Structures are given as C-alpha cells and as structure tokens.
C-alpha cells in the first residue's frame, strides 16, 4: 500500500498542524449500547449456566455411580435395585437395536421421499409435500406410539413371524419359539425392538428427510441440465449428479435422525415389554432402552439408584451429542460446497 493512500485514510484534515493525532476509534460500546451489550451478555450467560449446568450436573452425578458400582456399571446387564446390581449394558444394546431398526426403515424411506419431492413431484405439489413432511415432524411422539401399538403391532408381528419362518437361520431374525408350530405363539412376536423401531422410524423420518431434501434442492441446476442434455435418463442424472452432490446431506440427515432415535422415550415405553438381556433377536418380545429404563424406574429410585439413572441418561446424552456433532459437521461441509459452486 502506498504512502499517499495511507495519509488519505488517516488524516481527515490535510493541513493539520504537526503533533495532532487522529482520534482513536474504540469499538467498546458506551452509554446505552454498553447497557444493551451487558444485558444481553447476562442473558446469554444465564442460558449458558442453565444448559451447561445440566451437562455438568449429569457428569457430576456419574461420580458416585462409578465409585459405587465401578466400571462394571457399563458391562453389567441386570438392573436389580433390590440386589444392588445395576448396569446399563443390556439397555445400551437395546437402545442401539431399536435405533438401528428405526434407521433401517427410516433411511430408505426418507431418501426416497426427499428424492421424490426434489426431483419427481410436480412443481405445484412440492410446497404441500414439504409442509406435510414438516407436519409429520410436529405430530407428538405419543400419537406415533398409539399408532405403532394399536395399528402396526398386529401386522408387524405377523410379518415378524413370516421372517422367522423363512429367514430364522439368520441370528437376528430367530425367535425363541417354534416357527412352524401349528398354532404359533403370537405373543412372542409382539412388544419387540422391531415393533418399537417402526414407531420410532416415523419420528426420525421427517427429520432426516428434511435435511436430505434441503441439500438435494441445492444441487446446481446447470449440472443437472448438463447430465440430461448428454442423454442421461432421470435416474442417470440423479445417480451421477444429485446423489454425489447430496452425499453430505444424506449422511448428516441420517445421523441427525439416529440421534433422535436414540433418545426417543414414550413410543418405546408404550410398545416394548422391559427385559434386561443383551438380545440380538430383534423380533422377539422384550428389550429395553435407556430412556424407557429411566421412565420406568425413576419412581422407585432414590439415592444411589437415582444417580445411576442420571448416569445412564448422561451416557445416552454423550452418545447423542457425538452423533449430532458428527452429523452437523458432515451437513455443514456439504453446504459450504454448495455455496462455492
């Protein structure tokens, strides 16, 4: 930068006597602005204290838990307050299995819905369909719980029986009963992680779908048209342009959904019958998740058991936090790509 331009910016008075220095500009707010800044800083600080306080409180509560039960708290499967044996291994596995069942339904369906809305749907329906997906996200989870319990469970357990009959040799589809019995034991196929997962999928779906659709809609139109102009079919265009472009959104949206699925309580509590066993057999009755454990056990808990429940909640929170953070990183990375192209 030349000397001249420097002079122009700093000296408003060209013939100022020597020794006069330009006024120093301070970014520090004064007067009313200072009051404004400090007031809102105080609000921000109080919210930080409230929200951060919960995290710290939960972390602090795990200290007595781990001192009392040791690290077997993470490996013990039983939750028997009478015998003073508490552990979250079984419920963690149950949480994961419900969430994975939910994702295996929600992932293909949300991908298809997002692709349909952004690529296939007629233009005049798009806004309505987007609103419908948002509405789906606003439906209370207890309603999906009722839907899963009363409408889906009879069909789902029938489907589970067929799966067991024909694919029972795969460990996750086996059920501890005779599949080909003349009168199959229908109750063995209800209240399972499979049925709960379907209800949870309904809650996860709109969230994942919204993220995916948003990323798909940012696909550069020029590249899509280029693919079509080169003679690609619609699917060829989607496969070579839309899907690679939206990869971040697909992964991120799925993980955001997974984060929600892990913490879902009331639909799971309504459907499953609690059982503290590490159970890979998702079609069979009985499983438990961390959040359903908390909802089911908090009433009788006191002292150390309450700490243990809070610790279970803290572990769940940490898992959700990691999943959500990874999702946010992936989604943000894909969006920053959209801005440059």
């Amino acid at each position: 930068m030349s000397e001249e331009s420097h002079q122009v910016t700093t000296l408003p008075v060209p013939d100022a006597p020597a020794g006069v220095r330009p006024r120093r500009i301070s970014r520090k707010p004064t007067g009313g602005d200072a009051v404004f800044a400090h007031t809102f800083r105080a609000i921000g600080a109080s919210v930080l204290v409230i929200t951060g306080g919960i995290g710290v409180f939960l972390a602090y509560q795990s200290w007595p838990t781990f001192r009392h039960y040791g690290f077997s708290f993470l490996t013990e499967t039983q939750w028997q307050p009478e015998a003073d044996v508490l552990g979250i291994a079984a419920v963690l596995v149950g949480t994961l299995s419900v969430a994975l069942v939910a994702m295996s339904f929600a992932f293909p369906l949300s991908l298809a819905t997002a692709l349909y809305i952004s690529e296939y749907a007629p233009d005049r329906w798009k806004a309505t369909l987007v609103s419908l997906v948002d509405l789906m996200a606003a439906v209370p989870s207890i309603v999906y719980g009722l839907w899963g319990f009363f409408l889906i469970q009879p069909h789902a357990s029938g489907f589970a029986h067929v799966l067991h009959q024909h694919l029972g040799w795969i460990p996750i589809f086996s059920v501890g009963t005779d599949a080909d019995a003349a009168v199959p034991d229908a109750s063995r196929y209800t209240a399972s992680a499979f049925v709960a997962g379907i209800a949870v999928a309904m809650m996860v779906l709109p969230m994942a779908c919204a993220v995916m659709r948003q990323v798909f809609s940012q696909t550069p139109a020029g590249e899509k048209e280029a693919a079509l102009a080169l003679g690609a079919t619609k699917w060829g265009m989607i496969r070579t342009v839309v899907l690679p472009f939206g990869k971040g959104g697909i992964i991120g949206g799925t993980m955001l959904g997974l984060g929600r699925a892990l913490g879902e309580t009331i639909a799971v509590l309504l459907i499953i019958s609690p059982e503290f066993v590490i159970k890979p057999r998702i079609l069979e009755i009985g499983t438990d998740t961390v959040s359903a454990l908390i909802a089911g056990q908090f009433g009788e808990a006191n002292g150390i058991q309450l700490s243990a429940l809070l610790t279970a909640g803290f572990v769940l929170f940490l898992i959700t936090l990691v999943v959500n953070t990874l999702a946010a990183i992936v989604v943000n990375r894909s969006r920053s790509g959209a801005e440059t192209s």
Partner: protein
Amino acid sequence: MTVSAPVTEATDDPQPRTHLPASGQETPAPVPRAGLGAMPEQDRLVIWGSRLSAAALAWVITQRLLPTPGPAWFLVVFGAMNLLVLSVTTALTDDLVVVKDRIAQWLVSTGALVVFSALASTIFFVFHRGWHPLVHLNFYIHDMTGVGPSDPLDKGGILHAIVGSLIEIGIAVAITLPLGVGTAVFMTEVGGRFARVVRTVVEAMTALPSIVAGLFIYTTLIIALGVPRSGLAAGLAISVMMLPIIARASDVVLRVVPGGLREASLALGASRWKTVWHVVLPTARPGLATALILGIARGIGETSPVLITSGAAAFLVTDPSQGVMNSLPLYIFSTVRSGVPIAIERAFATASVLLILVLVLFVVARLLARPRK
C-alpha cells in the same frame, strides 16, 4: 438467411421481417406444440397396464393360490408384481438403461407413497378410534373427578388435561421466549468469543434427550429442593427441553437478517438496542414466530418430561405451584396403560384433541412464515 432490419413503424416495406402479433388478433399457432413434460402414450400405457395386471395377479396369488387373505399381503404382492411386470414390459421395447430408470422411479415414488400414507393412516386412525367421545360435550367441559376407567362416555372429560397442558406450556413459553430469543440476539448482535462458547453449548444441549431433561428437574427440584410434583415442575422440565431448541432456531432466523439493514440503522444514528428492537426483530418476526410455534408444538406433545415431573391428577387444577397436575400427553399415556377398552377410546379422543391443537399451531406457523405480498 438475411438479417432483417430493426422493426420500425413503417409497414409497406417489401423486405421479410419479424412477424409481430398485434394485440387483439389472436391467431392460433400453426403447429401444435409438443408437450415435452408429458409422457409418451406408450409409456403411460405400459405403466397403467402393469398396474392393472399386477392387481389382477396379486388378487389371484393372495386370494386364490396362497392362504394369505387380507389387504396387507395383497398390497405387498401387488407392489412386487407391479415392479416385475413393469420392468419386463419395459425391457420388451427399451434397453437396460431405461429399465433401470423405470425401476428407480418406481422405488422412489413408492417410498414417498408409503411415507405419506403412513402419515395419513396415523391421523385417520387416531380420529377413527377416538371420535365417539368427541361428540359428547362433557368431554370438553368436565374433568375425571369420580369417573372410573370403565364409566360410559357421557361422564367425565379432559378439561383438566387441556387446562394443565395450557398452563404448563404457558410457563415454558414465559421462560423460553425471553431467554431463548435474548440468547439468539446475544449470539448474533453482540457476538464475540463468549457468544461462540454459548452457541456451542446451546447447540450441544439440543442433543439432550427429553427424558433426561425431566429427570434433571426431578432430581434437583423435587428430590433435592422438596418442591412437590406439580405443573410448575412440569413447565420447568418442558422449558429445559425447549430452551436450546428455541434459542438455536431463533439464532438461525436472526442470522439471515441482512447486515445492510443493521448498518443502515446504525448509520442513521440509532443505538444498538433501537436497531435490534426496531429493525432486526421486526424483520425476523415471521421466522421467529414460526420457530416459537414449532417449539410449542414440540413441547406440548412431549410426554416424557411431564411423565416424571407433574404426576397425574384426575381433577381440574389451576394452580401450577400446588400439587399434581395432568396434561394431554400424560393423560393419553396413563389412560392407554389402563387397558380398559372404553378408557382407550378416551385416550384416542384425547390424542385427537392434541393432534388438532398441533395442527392448528402448525397452520398458524405456516401462515406467519408465508412471505408478505
């Protein structure tokens, strides 16, 4: 081809020139335009024909050949047959690329159809199972005092649950609206390193499962401080759950307010508070309203924090600080758990009321978010 001269007012020029359609003399286009968006007739025939034949095949297979009566298996077999017939018929005339395109289109549309019909089935099912109590007036203006689970539907109602839900969500909004929007203003308008810390923590806390928020209030307020299970505790639990959601959503909305508006206001001599109050917040008002209303819809339907903190009263309670209080989702949950058929019917009716409430909130949010004309 010659380049025609610029069109002038003169009309008796013998040279060929651009045809200018005069207004009022609408002449039909000489050649009908080809509709590029529409599908060729043959493709439409293939699609509808394969649907028809798939339906016939599915009927034969499920209702005649296999012992699988009922609509569920029919739909599954119909789907599979449709895909099969569609790909075979397409393969007769076209190559593999087109077949793949057809299959992909079928899969994507069917997936979307499944999702939207699941949503429709949810709403329809809840209203279908719950409309009996809804036609009784007492369902809206009575509470469940002295009404047993198997009493007929002309006794008792859910007034206590409606009032309880409104009080609890009112407490939550009174807490989260100023704090959440205030935090968003701090994060976007004041800024600085501390604001980034707040933003990180608030975003992290959106991952807090709602049941853990309830358990936090239960442990600190009810066990440690001895506050009774009450509407106040439930409202606080909902606030803890909603606060990060509202703060984050408002932050997103405030961030997209154009910086030029702020700078114009500051350049005109307005103080920063005046800028926020008269420029930033009014600009973001529709977005803020949407964020708040969707937060309310989420909070009012959330069962798990309420389940732990409020207790379930069968009678009308209007004082949130005194004793147990019921709310709509909690009433649904506890009534369904009783297992009595007539009580389950009440639960479905309550779910319909809750669903209507959420639908109304949702529509209001949509209307507010619509760009002004």
